[in-house]
């Protein structure tokens, strides 16, 4: 079977698994349902890995017209899947992280729905199918369909613990804001369809290129509207509000997937749509796209880092760290070169491992002690040395300790971005990594003093464990998964073959004309090669500096007495994150306006 033929199966396999689980659900005992879910998820991962391994080169673009609707003269009525190294690589990342999350959730939940033990693995399989489809499709409307599939399943997974009102509220906020994003994307697709009569990324791109000379209002509006939906998923400021609320309440294995891959798929979607549709002569001029992405990225990175430092609820802390890192990814995209894309790709790969591992550690704390509050847990983690080690290593990797893949990705991205971006990268890495280390030092080492209680804040005390009761002994699966994930993040920085593959993938990803020719004309063209991402001395030095800074920040923070009230200048910022859906909708519309203003 050719690589192209395998592409639809990467989507179909988890869907079939979900159907089997739901169909047999009432008769399946819980263990069988979980094994079956794991098998289908791992089978999909095997397919994706096999397809990746069978790619003839890192710049190859196997193209599959579903239903056999090959184009004639560049026109087709069908849907195309494109298995280039980037899309297939992301599908592989998703498919590897899903079995990891399912293994972590092994016999995890307190109360599976009565007679529906299979519903959690089935939902996760649907989530996997949505994410893989989104990564592989070469059709804008089809991308929207998979975007919605991801969304619908993610809302349900977020609100999974319905016994708690907060879980329902978090799922609802997530659903409202992401649905609004879906509507704007659909409006944007409608505008593009009205102009071009096409729905495929390559077809729309070619039709726009037939009318060169600056974009008119329709093209700008279409880009803004399509990108808004994707940036909501990516949690870029000011579309990011849903993320922390959802992460705070979602079950830990779901957080691993949301922060590890789903948010990054929003970044990927933005980049994919820009490079295939809008990067040609009829699209958005490069300086405008650069300005918009850079401004949003810098805003997101700074706000995410400031909010991250302020949190004591560990899941919210990690959630805001994801926001900050999304900002860094967007700055990398804004460079609009293969170097920037290559750096972001490596960063995303390693970040998925590190962030999922950190969430896994927090999940252990939640199920052992029934709390995710930094102060409440003070010193309690001493009895969990292995978890402590992983949490600490995760914090260091997040800050950019070489030779972790996060450090490599950061180094390559900041070098591509250049100038003040380096300072921003170091600062944001140090603050987000430092926040994790600070929490780790308090929880696992018992450093610093226990603070007085402050009832006004979202503290993370009094949370319900996600397991049947507080765990007396941590199951091996919950320790093994984060260990493997951290090892993978380390491997991203160390395996040289991965760097050359990512380099080629980035060259192909940013080759607008090459993508159009490969999809519509079946013509293979080699993109202009650029040097593959690699370790540089300045990159290592900046990474070490950020790590040291993170450590210093953490130590300073734990030595100072904890104040009951938040720092004064952050109060207005914290008030913006009110948990009020109406506020989030207002900011969403303001964000559309901001994005449009940045582009004209």
């Amino acid at each position, binding site marked *: 079977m050719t690589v192209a*033929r395998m592409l639809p*199966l990467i989507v179909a396999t988890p*869907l079939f698994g979900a159907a089997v689980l739901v169909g047999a659900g009432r008769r399946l005992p819980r263990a069988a349902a979980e094994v079956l879910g794991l098998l289908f998820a791992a089978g999909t991962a095997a397919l994706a890995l096999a397809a990746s391994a069978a790619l003839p080169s890192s710049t190859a673009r196997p193209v599959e017209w*579903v239903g056999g609707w090959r184009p004639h003269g560049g026109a087709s009525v069908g849907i195309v899947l494109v298995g280039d190294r980037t899309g297939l690589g992301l599908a592989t990342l998703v498919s590897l992280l899903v079995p990891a999350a399912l293994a972590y959730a092994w016999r995890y939940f307190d109360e599976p729905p009565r007679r529906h033990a299979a519903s959690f693995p089935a939902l996760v399989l649907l989530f996997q199918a949505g994410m893989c489809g989104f990564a592989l499709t070469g059709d804008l409307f089809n991308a929207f369909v998979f975007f919605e599939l991801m969304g619908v399943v993610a809302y349900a997974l977020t609100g999974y613990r319905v016994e708690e009102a907060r879980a329902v509220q978090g799922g609802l906020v997530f659903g409202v804001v992401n649905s609004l994003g879906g509507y704007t994307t659909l409006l944007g697709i409608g505008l593009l369809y009205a102009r071009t009569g096409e729905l495929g990324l390559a077809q729309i791109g070619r039709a726009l290129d037939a009318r060169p000379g600056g974009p008119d209002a329709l093209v700008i509006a279409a880009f803004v509207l399509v990108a808004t939906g994707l940036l909501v998923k990516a949690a870029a400021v000011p579309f990011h509000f849903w993320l922390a609320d959802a992460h705070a309440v979602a079950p830990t294995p779901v957080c691993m997937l949301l922060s590890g891959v789903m948010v990054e798929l929003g970044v990927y979607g933005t980049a994919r749509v820009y490079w295939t549709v809008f990067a040609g002569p009829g699209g958005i001029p490069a300086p405008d796209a650069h300005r918009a992405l850079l401004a949003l990225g810098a805003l997101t990175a700074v706000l995410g880092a400031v909010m991250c430092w302020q949190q004591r609820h560990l899941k919210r802390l990690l959630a805001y760290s994801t926001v900050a890192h999304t900002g860094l990814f967007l700055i990398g995209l804004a460079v609009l070169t293969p170097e920037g894309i290559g750096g972001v790709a490596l960063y995303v790969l390693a970040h998925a491992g590190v962030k999922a591992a950190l969430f896994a550690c927090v999940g252990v704390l939640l199920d052992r002690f029934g709390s995710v509050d930094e102060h409440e847990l003070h010193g309690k983690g001493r009895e969990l040395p292995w978890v402590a080690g992983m949490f600490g290593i995760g914090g260091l990797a997040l800050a950019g300790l070489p030779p972790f893949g996060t450090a490599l990705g950061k180094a390559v991205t900041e070098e591509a971005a250049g100038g003040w971006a380096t300072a921003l990268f170091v600062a944001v890495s140090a603050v987000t990594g430092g926040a994790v280390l600070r929490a780790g030092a308090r929880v696992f080492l018992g450093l610093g003093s226990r603070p007085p209680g402050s009832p006004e804040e979202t503290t993370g005390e009094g949370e319900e464990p996600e397991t049947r009761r507080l765990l007396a002994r941590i199951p091996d699966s919950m320790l093994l998964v984060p260990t493997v994930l951290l090892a993978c993040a380390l491997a991203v920085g160390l395996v040289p073959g991965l760097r050359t593959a990512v380099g080629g993938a980035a060259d192909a990803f940013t080759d607008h004309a090459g993508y159009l020719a490969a999809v519509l004309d079946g013509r293979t063209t080699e993109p202009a090669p650029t040097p593959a991402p690699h370790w540089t001395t300045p990159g290592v030095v900046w990474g070490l500096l950020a790590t040291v800074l993170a450590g210093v920040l953490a130590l300073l923070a734990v030595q100072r007495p904890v104040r009951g009230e938040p720092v004064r200048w952050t109060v207005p910022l914290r008030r*913006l994150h009110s948990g009020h859906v109406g506020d989030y909708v207002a900011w969403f519309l303001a964000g559309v306006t901001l994005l449009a203003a940045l582009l004209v």
Partner: protein
Amino acid sequence: MSMRLRLWVLAAGVLGTATLFVLACAELPGFGGTWHPYGDRAVHAALARHTANTIASVNFDQRALDTLGEESILFGSVLGTLVLLRQTRDERRLPPEPARVAPPVRRYALIALPVTLLIGLYVVAHGQLSPGGGFQGGVVVATSLHLLYIAIDYRALERIRPVGLYEVADAAGEAGYLLIGAAALLTGAAFLTNFLPYGTFNTLSSGGTVPLLNAAIGVEVAAGIVVLLARFLDQAVEIVSGRDEAEDET
């Protein structure tokens, strides 16, 4: 965030978004033109495959992968509802009470039920020929069963509605669509290729795999809607919170 600030942000956002959208709409092609690149191609492709209803050809042949995604969205929504509306530890079930129904309502619903069911099945079966198809017909079929709730009471509906069976049917519809799509791989064609003979134009057996995929959707939608409504109705009629049981029983 204060009400004042909220309203200012909202006003700025609405104004900016509306301006952007209005300016974009001014650039749209004029209404009623003759330039329909996709439509022309889709009609041509539908006729070439002997599918009289072009929409069905787009849904189940030309863009069958979109339909798979949409079917999965419904499937995921039903599953998600099942999870979110489950009976939790602090809730319990009360058997539903028999209800009195006004005779005209009962007569109407009992007459409408078989007619609605028949129309639903007809709409599903003729998806490849006339407007409608699995999505629309499936909803009509599911609605017809619920007329029993209106005509008699919830216990009558529960008797013809073993939710477990409908869940299996829901999953079978989803799996069936995938299996028909994968069957094309055995013939050496791409996933979801229309590999069956196209048949005689404008007859029930025309369109190759279109009627089969359409039927799979019909089963999935009808069963999915029944399960979906069952969850909501259970919450409304049967499941009560343990704490407030005295109030709920009155």
